[in-house]
């Protein structure tokens, strides 16, 4: 009920959690943002103390009082220690590498204890997806948590709300804090691995003439260029000669492939086209072909290599992203 209310009233949530998302840079969990309540075990512990006190009154056990009050004092100190385990931790988020839709975006959270003591058992939990991980922050050090958040749609995916929680040291209290750092991950369209080889598609496109076994026929070695795929590097030769060489295959230079939006079957909707094109781009890169990408209003000239593939996939991911999102 409360969660729903906060969902509908983001400003109330912002006031309650003590920040306005998204937060830039390093987020420090000042103690105003750290919330703490007893756990169910904490309630049990309280009930135990109560029974001990009543028993001590009934049997006039002075040491019984001492025990019960020692436990009560310990619980109180434990509460402070639990809050301390989280308070003033600095959280920053690292770069998340692009992923394909359907995979999990790997957000890297860095928890900086900034303290002379260690902060064990801090649970980081991605609120929307429920992904969670426990980490121990060493004294004066930084712990890294990688949260795998399922990427459902292409485009930019913000990290969303992350909860940091701890029950250390006694497990009687639960302290938690919400953060929503400014971090996003580029999500490529889900590649459609349809049995459409790039060659046949381009055959139909008619823009290139591709020999069927283009990269099967070894034609010789040439000097390595930075854009060459690592798959084509002649590692054995490199080891022998100490010189980076790239294998060349017959007809490779002649192949130039256009992955064209307009040439896809007209029945496909936009997302399916993007998926198909992403699949082709991957296949073309794997085949070692030189390929270009044509989207409505965007064209990437033919090229090769990981950077080129990434540029193509990014273009596909962000195609009409503003409108789609």
């Amino acid at each position, binding site marked *: 009920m409360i969660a729903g209310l906060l969902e509908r009233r983001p400003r109330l949530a912002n006031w309650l959690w003590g920040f306005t998302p998204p937060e*830039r*840079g390093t987020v420090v969990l000042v*103690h105003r943002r750290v919330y703490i309540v007893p756990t169910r*075990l904490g309630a*049990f*512990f309280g009930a*135990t103390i109560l*029974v*001990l*006190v*009543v*028993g*001590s*009154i*009934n*049997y*006039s*056990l*002075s*040491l*019984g*009082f*001492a*025990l*019960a*009050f*020692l*436990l*009560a*004092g*310990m*619980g*109180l*100190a*434990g*509460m*402070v*220690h639990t*809050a*301390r385990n989280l*308070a*003033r931790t600095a959280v920053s988020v690292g770069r998340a590498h692009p992923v394909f839709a359907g995979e999990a975006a790997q957000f890297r959270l860095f928890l900086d204890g*900034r*303290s*002379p*003591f*260690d902060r*064990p*058992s801090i649970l980081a939990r991605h609120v929307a997806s429920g992904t969670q991980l426990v980490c*121990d922050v060493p004294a004066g050090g930084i712990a890294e948590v990688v949260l795998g958040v399922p990427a459902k749609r292409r485009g930019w995916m913000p990290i969303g709300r992350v909860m940091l929680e701890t*029950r*250390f*040291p*006694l*497990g009687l209290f639960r302290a938690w804090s919400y953060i929503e750092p400014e971090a996003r991950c580029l999500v490529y369209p889900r590649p459609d691995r349809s049995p459409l080889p790039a060659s046949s598609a381009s055959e139909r496109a008619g823009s290139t003439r591709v020999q069927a076994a283009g990269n099967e026929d070894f034609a010789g070695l040439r000097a390595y260029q930075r854009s060459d795929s690592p798959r084509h590097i002649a590692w054995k030769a490199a080891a022998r000669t100490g010189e980076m060489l790239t294998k060349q295959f017959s007809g490779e230079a002649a192949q130039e492939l256009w992955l064209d939006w307009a040439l896809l079957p007209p029945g496909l909707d936009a997302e399916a086209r993007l998926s198909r094109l992403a699949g082709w781009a991957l296949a073309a890169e794997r085949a070692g072909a030189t390929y270009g990408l044509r989207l409505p209003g965007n064209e990437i000239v033919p090229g090769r290599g990981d950077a080129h593939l990434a540029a193509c996939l990014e273009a596909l991911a962000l195609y009409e992203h503003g409108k789609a999102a």
Partner: protein
Amino acid sequence: MSVVDMACLMGSLVLVAAPHALRAPWWLTLLTLCLYGWRVYFALNRAPLPSRWFVLAIAVVGILAVWFEQRTVFGRTSGIMLLLLFSGLKLLETRTHRDAMIVCFLAYFLIITNFLYTQSIPTAALMLAGVLCITATMVGFSAPARPIRANARTAILVLAHGVPAALVLFLLFPRVQGPLWGLPQDAYAAMTGMSDEMAPGNLARLALNDAIAFRAEFVGEPPAQRQLYWRGPVLWEFDGRSWKTGPSILARYEPPQEGGPKFRYSVVLEPHNREWLFALETASTLPDRARFTHDGQVLSAFPIRARMRYEMRSVAVNETRADEVPTLLGRALRLPEGFNPRAAALAREWAAASAGETEIMERGLSFLRAGRFTYTLEPPPLGRDSIDEFLFETKQGFCEHFASAFVFLMRSAGVPARVVMGYQGGDLNPVDRIVTVRQSDAHAWAEVFLRGRGWVRVDPTGAAAPMRVDSGVVRAMPDASPLPFLVRTEYQWVRALRYQWEAATYKWNVWVLGYNPDRQRELMSFVGLPDADWRALTATLFSILGVLTAALLAWSLRRLRPPDPVQRAWRAFCRKLARQGLERAPHEGPRDYSLRAARALPGARSAILHIAALYISLRYGEDESEARVRELRRRVRALRLA
């Protein structure tokens, strides 16, 4: 749960269950140990735990066995036995850390039930060790990957941080005098002390016990050993074998106010489950909630079931100098028909030959003095005419034999007499000048009524074995007697150590164990809140707890690294510029930002560029001097942009 967690849990359990296991019947100890061991086996082999039904079956068998042993499953002893059993059974269904925490809470109950038997300093130390182990175990549950040593350190830290709050709670938590409800029948079975009946062998048995009966702290110098007669129950009725108190009557009793040296002292009485408050002869005032009986016993309004402290004044007189009610004098002469004919005949002889009661009394005492009686803890058993046999045949007895025989002789001779039980003597601790009276100081003496003098104390044991009264039971005994080790005097260093220990124990009893509603009131009036009720106490308590918690929080956050002063100054600088509409873009470094700001605000150009240069050299350069940091802060503060 990992093996390490299980080992910690098991260690804590063994520690807190050990005192119970030593007291429990052997089969229960064995069963509990087996259950613990079984759980260890499961943990080591990662085997699946036994089924719920199997555990239930063991529980039922265990409960039945406890019932056979105790004939009840309620009551204190049975309750503790079941608690011990359940600690093992709960382990067998402990799978998660949450279950294990419940076992930890169970362990707290094992600790507190041990206090029903003892609350000594070693028990408190054991409690601390137990709580520490349990806490370390709990810390281990919430941080399984951490080394045990780190967890133990955290446990010590958390406990230490809890001590101030615990202390405040102990002192200020509104105390109520228990019990809140009826206690089980066997609640006080373990208490030792005097009974209201004196049969041959009763006191001798008590004298073998070196448990402490009470301690007395005198204002000024304590009286001499031979004056230390601590008066307890007064016995009137004799049935030929044992003496009993008899019915009480309503009669005025006037405590003496003058007539001898006066003593002021406080007594810390160990619980003995009876009403007697022992006082030095003769008590002249009453503690709170106490009364005098017609024969001068001091009785509390309720049985003493918790250690109790009371203030007393006494006047050292051994006669009442008052008249007595005739019916009572009649009772003080009553004897059963047909017992001890030889003693009765002897007494009648004395009566015939004497001029008065005083002379009869003197004859009785000189008879005991001259009779070569042996004072011993192990007198031979006596038959039907116990007094005849003691006086004329065995001639060996403990104080109850002497008192009983003397009072019988006096009554037979027509002198009203009664038996008084109590303690005689006590051990003066040179460390804190406190007199410790043990059960082994239990004594019985006589009081005879002499016209004009009232009831006069006569100690027949003192006549037969003067050492007993002058220097205590130990010196009066032959060497081989089976007195408790601690009471004997051969080893000086043992004695010295014992005195130190007892002084500490006394402080412990008075200040820790004796802290009760009365003491709490005293404390509150001492700090200036004389009539603090539970509301005032609770309010004070919670405000102090709040302050303590806030202080602890502040202290623990203080240890966190303060923000870098250079960074703080830079942020203040950025904020000042942002107020002029020059917010720093996330991609902008200090140089670009300051150049942009300087262009936009030509009036402050040099100041802005200077601050940026300072910041860059402090932040990225080698320069870390304090003076430059101060300069940066001063320049940022002095920056005027409007």
